[in-house]
């Protein structure tokens, strides 16, 4: 299975607002990835954590996006000054080296 719990499942926010999306891995994987899937596209990599540190944040689209994982388990993706183009499904998955990725339902973010 997906191995994570993401909350909220759906979030509607107004343009310009700040949002936080939470990812709670069920099992104790050291690695955690965030992806987002915009309508009509495949998922795109955002950021990868190894433990508490962001090992690769090259997929974050701009500085309005930030993610943390302070204790190496739960991770929060933070989006400031949301724009309509941020509307997407945000997915997080646990993982390790060359393991098969299993995606859950994610959080559907709608910016109006």
């Amino acid at each position, binding site marked *: 299975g997906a191995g994570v719990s993401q909350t909220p499942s759906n979030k509607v926010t107004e343009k310009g607002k700040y949002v936080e999306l939470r990812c709670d891995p069920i099992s104790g994987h050291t690695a955690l990835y965030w992806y987002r899937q915009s309508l009509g596209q495949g998922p795109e990599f955002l950021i990868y954590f190894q433990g508490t540190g962001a090992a690769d944040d090259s997929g974050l689209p701009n500085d309005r996006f930030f993610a943390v994982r302070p204790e190496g388990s739960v991770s929060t993706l933070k989006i400031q000054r949301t724009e309509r183009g941020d509307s997407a499904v945000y997915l997080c998955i646990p993982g390790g*080296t060359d393991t098969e990725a299993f995606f859950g339902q994610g959080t559907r973010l709608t910016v109006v």
Partner: protein
Amino acid sequence: GIQVEQSPPDLILQEGANSTLRCNFSDSVNNLQWFHQNPWGQLINLFYIPSGTKQNGRLSATTVATERYSLLYISSSQTTDSGVYFCAVSYPHAGGTSYGKLTFGQGTILTVHP
């Protein structure tokens, strides 16, 4: 970064027909997965197949890593096969290690009519 191209972009079938979906990638990979995204948006794992051939019921997949492509075969298609099929790859990171950062293709939209 690595490029992943899927073909065809759209495919319409009558129930019972067979089909082949293709995934080309631009560099060596050490992870390749096929996913089916159903109409409710759920990404369902079909195959983890960085090389070789696997079969699961009416579906099978072959990856020829040296030639940088993978094929997904669907036989005797059913209406429940409709949805979007994604191929995703990861490749060795600088330094020889890989952490499973996946790059997805744009997908093939499959519609199976009764």
